[in-house]
């Protein structure tokens, strides 16, 4: 079996004592990052990339560390959702709907353990799905030429914009902002600067890490200054933590179904994890019917979105690894990590650097087990982290961001640019403009333009070439549908309102 040979290769890379140690550190750190209110997975991974980079870890170790942080943060996110009713990021929103009421009934410990198990099931099934599906998709991806890639990037922006935003025009603006920023710098084919305004600092282009840290971490600081750090005190007490075997057993089918739904949603390029947890919750809600009690604090309402969320996170890795198109905000940040490590995701990654792909998959499996073992007995320690007051946390996060970016280049210019992105991020989020398309635009702009240019060179400037193959036409149709359909479905797919006290 080729699969097992590949897995053995992966575990051979990922199971050395040193990488295991990194995985444990990453899981611990990630859970804390996820648990801290206002520091979601994308945030946490973004701040840590520059620091990991300067530490000089090799590609596999860095990858193991950061994927553990990523998975850890997904786990940790549920702690603040359940105990504080504050979702660490968009997908965790669905967990607050039943998790917080359950915690208020005095079952906080049960909810935390149950969501941990659900996360484990979702992530494990998704990783298995990733192992089965990714190599097949990588083979299909070899059929992709420049026209298909251009349509694929477009599809990612369209579905992301369609799903993640309430206003299509704002999503388009966000994507264009990112793509426009990506164009700045020296053009690779002519060697001449483009759109730099004569500023020498801009000749290298704008580093996506600067943009990511600015848009996520620095913008968060302004939000906390606006709210004066209110809403981060703990309202629910957590006493004894036991393992609620009965709840775990009674939600087993929910977890399995939610994992399936989440995984499929995660695979869609651009749509990502929010859609996964949303669909998982909504489908379980309709299966349970009126008497299911969803929204009042039932175990199924906690298990479904958590399993869906984590399965979608695994599913989102499929397009990210095989096609280089991330399916969510956090996978976009992981793509940034791969690019920093000089690894280009895409079909060739599976044939040329199998040790990276399978090492990553093996480390996902390891991280998953470590997280489950760590989370059930140590949940009380992570809950303590929530007590860190915002007035220590936010200045700390800001200073870490500064040091991270400063250690990349040692230039004040990148720091000023980062502050600029922070201000931009504040206004964008205030105006309900999604920031993930901006990040995706900066990350993918160069590749998308490359695809378009190669298509135009091949066809001698004939735009019809972009629609010349069945795959390309299919992707264009999907892109248009993914962009337009949410406008009409918005009333049907209305998000349930968050629980208020």
């Amino acid at each position, binding site marked *: 079996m080729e699969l097992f040979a590949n897995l053995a290769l992966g575990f051979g890379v990922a199971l050395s004592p040193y990488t295991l140690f990194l995985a444990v550190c990453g899981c611990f750190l990630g859970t804390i990052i996820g648990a801290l209110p206002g520091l979601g997975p994308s945030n946490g991974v973004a701040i840590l990339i520059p620091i990991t980079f300067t530490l000089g870890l090799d590609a596999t170790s860095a990858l193991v560390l950061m994927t553990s942080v990523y998975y850890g943060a997904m786990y940790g996110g549920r702690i603040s959702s359940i105990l504080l009713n504050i979702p660490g990021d968009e997908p965790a929103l669905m967990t607050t709907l039943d998790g917080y009421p359950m915690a208020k009934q005095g079952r906080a410990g049960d909810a935390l353990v149950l969501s941990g198990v659900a996360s484990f099931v979702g992530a494990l099934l998704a990783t298995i799905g990733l192992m089965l599906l990714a190599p097949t998709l990588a083979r299909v991806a070899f059929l992709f030429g420049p026209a298909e890639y251009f349509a694929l990037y477009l599809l990612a922006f369209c579905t992301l914009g369609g799903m993640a935003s309430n206003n299509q025009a704002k999503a388009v603006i966000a994507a264009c902002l990112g793509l426009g920023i990506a164009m700045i710098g020296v053009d690779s084919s002519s060697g001449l*600067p483009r759109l730099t305004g004569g500023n020498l600092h801009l000749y290298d282009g704008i580093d996506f890490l600067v943009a990511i840290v600015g848009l996520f971490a*620095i913008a968060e600081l302004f939000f906390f200054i606006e709210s004066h750090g209110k809403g981060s005190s703990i309202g629910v007490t957590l006493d004894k933590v036991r393992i609620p075997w009965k709840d775990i057993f009674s939600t087993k089918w929910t977890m399995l179904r939610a994992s399936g739904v989440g995984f499929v949603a995660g695979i869609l390029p651009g749509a990502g994890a929010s859609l996964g947890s949303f669909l998982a919750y909504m489908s379980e809600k309709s299966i349970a019917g009126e008497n299911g009690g969803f929204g009042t604090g039932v175990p199924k309402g906690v298990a479904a979105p958590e399993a869906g969320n984590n399965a979608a996170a695994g599913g989102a890795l499929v397009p990210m690894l095989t096609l280089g198109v991330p399916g969510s905000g956090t996978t976009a940040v992981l793509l940034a990590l791969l690019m920093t490590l000089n690894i280009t995701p895409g079909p060739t990654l599976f044939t040329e650097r199998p040790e990276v792909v399978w090492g990553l998959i093996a480390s996902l499996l390891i991280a998953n087990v470590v997280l489950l073992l760590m989370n059930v007995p140590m949940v009380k320690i992570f809950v303590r982290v929530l007590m860190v007051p915002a*007035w220590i946390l936010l200045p700390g996060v800001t200073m870490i961001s500064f040091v991270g970016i400063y250690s990349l280049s040692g230039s004040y210019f990148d720091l000023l640019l980062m502050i600029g992105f922070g201000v931009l991020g504040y206004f964008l989020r205030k105006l309900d403009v999604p920031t993930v398309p901006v990040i995706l635009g900066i990350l993918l702009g160069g590749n998308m333009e490359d695809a378009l240019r190669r298509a135009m060179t091949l066809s001698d400037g004939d735009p019809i070439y972009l629609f010349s193959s069945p795959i390309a036409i299919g992707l264009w149709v999907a892109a248009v549908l993914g962009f337009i359909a949410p406008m009409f479905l918005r009333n049907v797919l209305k998000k349930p309102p968050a629980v208020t006290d």
Partner: protein
Amino acid sequence: MASDRIFGLIILITAVAYVAAATQIQTNFFSGEFLPKLFPLLIGSVAALAALVLVFRPDPDPDWPASATWINMAVAVAVLAVYAVLLTPLGFIAPTIVAAAILSYQISGRFGPSALSGLGLALGLFVLFKYALGLGNIVAYRVTSPAKIWDALTILIPFVGK
């Protein structure tokens, strides 16, 4: 309503300026006449269209903070900017104490705890970065002259700094 219209107008102006700049992109024999301009032109035009949609069909206004909060945030931006340029001439610890303390004060509104958290963060993070993680270009402190500090600060003043 108004915020989205203003935002749409800003984006529209930016997009038009971007398109104008894109038509001026230099090209040479290797890149061909048109290809380096094509994608920037497309992006600019699409953004301009979306901005027009926003101007004519704006969403309701968000809750903007009160004017006192705006001043607070402007102060925070200024503090961060000064921190960014002073990090090189003064080293890590002194600017971090001041910047972290001010930011902390802006969130908590209490003087004592903020000063302590500034001090604690500066020292704690320095030890973490320098000794635990071994980041090379973090320096504890540098002795510098007022002229050098002034040079650093002029970066922030348009048309004076270089």
